């Protein structure tokens, strides 16, 4: 503002600026009091007296400032407020509650300054108090929310630890159980073979039953192997470091290792990794995933038809997509979609299998931070798309 602007401003009616200082002190919108260094009250304004419900004569020279506070507040004031006041000459924004004569609490913020005499000795303490009834409610709400959030965080942390522990326990239980079951089942197979060699069956139906017994034993062994594989693959993936896997050679190697289906036409594989030639993932995990998907594609081919299997990569929303598409039997996803990745769930009972493959694929992809999407049409074929973070 330039000097000229001030000159041009309308003259202020000076009567409006005249304040009665005594009235301002007594009826200010805040509480005032002055105390001796030991806290003895020597002067209070009307506002403060009204809050407290005391007569001036009841307090002056008879009461200390500390006595107007709650006992807890007084402890705080003596241990923290007074030392601060003596050390730095002032205290600001300390939150206390005043006790009124009737026993009610008035939440206040306390500011104070210490005046010293010519020798530097404490002379008088001037105190200003602000009523913060509403603010205190809000602050207590905040404190409550904070305490709740902390309690919940703590609860989540313990629950998480518990879950991690249970998961590890479960894994070792499955591993131990499958490991311990394998030996007795093998013994059972051996004993039965011996029994079959030495025994003579008179009932013509016995031959059939022996065959069924073999089948059941085989199923038991497959299940046990499946369980062992689930745990082992997961452990391998947790231990193996992620690395860049060159897909063309890697997939060709897996295709060579697939068991040939006897009496069925040879499968035709189409590989196209142009879009994403390498994947960043633990090698054993990727091996297990691709092997299971490809062997499934062969196993569930349409009888008498040439299996055509395409393995491709693409990019989608910053993720690598590895897809395996076949022209096999397909799955009714409307009916079975929800159970597709469940352990030991099987959809084609006429084809041998353990019910572990897709469960493992899904679990390994999730462990690698990705997800699996499936589309399928009965009689037309199935496509699995693995979305993997890179």
């Amino acid at each position, binding site marked *: 503002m330039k000097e000229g602007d001030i000159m041009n401003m309308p003259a202020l009616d000076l009567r409006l600026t005249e304040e009665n200082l005594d009235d301002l002190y007594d009826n200010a919108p805040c509480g005032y009091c002055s105390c001796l260094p030991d806290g003895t009250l020597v002067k209070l304004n009307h506002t403060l007296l009204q809050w407290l419900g005391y007569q001036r004569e009841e307090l002056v020279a008879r009461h200390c400032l500390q006595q107007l506070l709650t006992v807890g507040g007084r402890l705080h004031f003596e241990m923290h407020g007074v*030392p*601060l006041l003596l050390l*730095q000459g002032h205290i600001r*924004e300390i939150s206390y509650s005043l006790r009124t004569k009737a026993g009610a609490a008035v939440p206040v913020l306390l500011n104070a300054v210490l005046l010293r005499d010519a020798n530097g000795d404490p002379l008088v303490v001037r105190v200003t108090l602000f009523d913060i009834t509403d603010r205190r409610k809000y602050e207590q709400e905040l404190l409550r929310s904070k305490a709740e959030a902390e309690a919940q965080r703590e609860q989540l942390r313990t629950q998480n630890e518990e879950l991690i522990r249970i998961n590890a326990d479960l894994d070792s239980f499955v591993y131990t159980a499958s490991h311990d079951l394998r030996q007795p089942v093998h013994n059972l197979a051996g004993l039965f073979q011996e029994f079959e060699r030495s025994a003579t069956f008179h009932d013509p139906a016995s031959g059939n039953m022996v065959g069924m017994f073999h089948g059941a034993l085989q199923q038991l062994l497959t299940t046990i192997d499946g369980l062992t594989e689930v745990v082992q693959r997961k452990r391998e993936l947790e231990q193996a470091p992620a690395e860049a896997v060159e897909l063309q050679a890697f997939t060709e190697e897996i295709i060579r290792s697939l068991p040939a289906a006897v009496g069925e036409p040879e499968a035709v594989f189409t590989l196209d990794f142009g879009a994403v030639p390498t994947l960043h993932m633990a090698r054993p995990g990727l091996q297990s995933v691709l092997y299971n998907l490809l062997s499934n594609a062969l196993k569930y081919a349409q009888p008498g038809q040439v299996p055509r299997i395409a393995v491709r990569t693409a990019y989608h929303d910053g993720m690598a997509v590895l897809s395996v598409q076949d022209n096999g039997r397909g799955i009714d996803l409307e009916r079975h979609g929800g159970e597709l990745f469940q352990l030991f769930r099987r959809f084609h009972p006429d084809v041998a299998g353990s019910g572990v493959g897709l469960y493992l694929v899904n679990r390994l992809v999730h462990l690698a931070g990705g997800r699996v999407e499936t589309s399928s049409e009965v009689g037309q074929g199935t496509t699995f798309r693995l979305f993997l973070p890179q």
Partner: protein
Amino acid sequence: MDVLNRNNVTVTGTGQQAMVFVHGFGCNQHMWRLVAPAFEDRYRVILLDLVGAGKSDLTAYDPARYSSLDAHAEDVLDVLQALDLHDIVLVGHSVSAMIAVLVAIRKPARVARLVLVAPSPRYLNDTGYTGGFELADIEELFETMDNNYLGWSAGITPVIMGHPERPELSEELNNSFCNTDPAIAQHFARVTFLSDNRADLPHVRTPALILQSAQDALAPLAVGQYLHQHLAQSQLTVLNNSGHCPHLSAPQQTISAINLFLEPARIAQV
């Protein structure tokens, strides 16, 4: 971290004997600044911050370890050992008066004299004992501390600490002298006010000065008399003062009383 850094130990003064000052709850070694300098011409003066207070190593504050005053007593002993101090004068205020008592019991050879400023062996009332407070009062203190969460926060760097000669620097800082981490302050308050050291008192063999104000809400006269009765070689001096911090509100009286206790002959000559 070595113990001298952990407890933010400062050493000044010259003399054959060392005088170690331990602050109470609610502040830090700055509490001694009106009293400690008066002894620097005759004593090695050692100030420290309890772990969790002032500029001590806050990361060393493990609530499990500091769930009793014993851990603080061990810390003080660590400092005495690190500085190779024996036959010291150990001055403790408020809760640290009891910490000093524990130090003297554990290693009597390290402590020649105890000066207990505004001490209390137990704040809560008990059958046949008046500590001055009920549990509800202490709960109210915790509530007040909660309401002053911001004020206790150590968010503001206490610049002034390094510039005692320039007090104007403190003007910009709000309540900066006694900043404390709120969570630690809460925990230390709990340990302080729920502790009971009455059973330790008969084990003290060190001559002790009990120094207290005539009016002190935290350590009433009855508590001072209780201590005097239960500390074998103790002397009770009541200062004509009001409040829990005579070393701040009546520094000259405090200095005189300590001098009289330590060197009665010298004072008599003067």
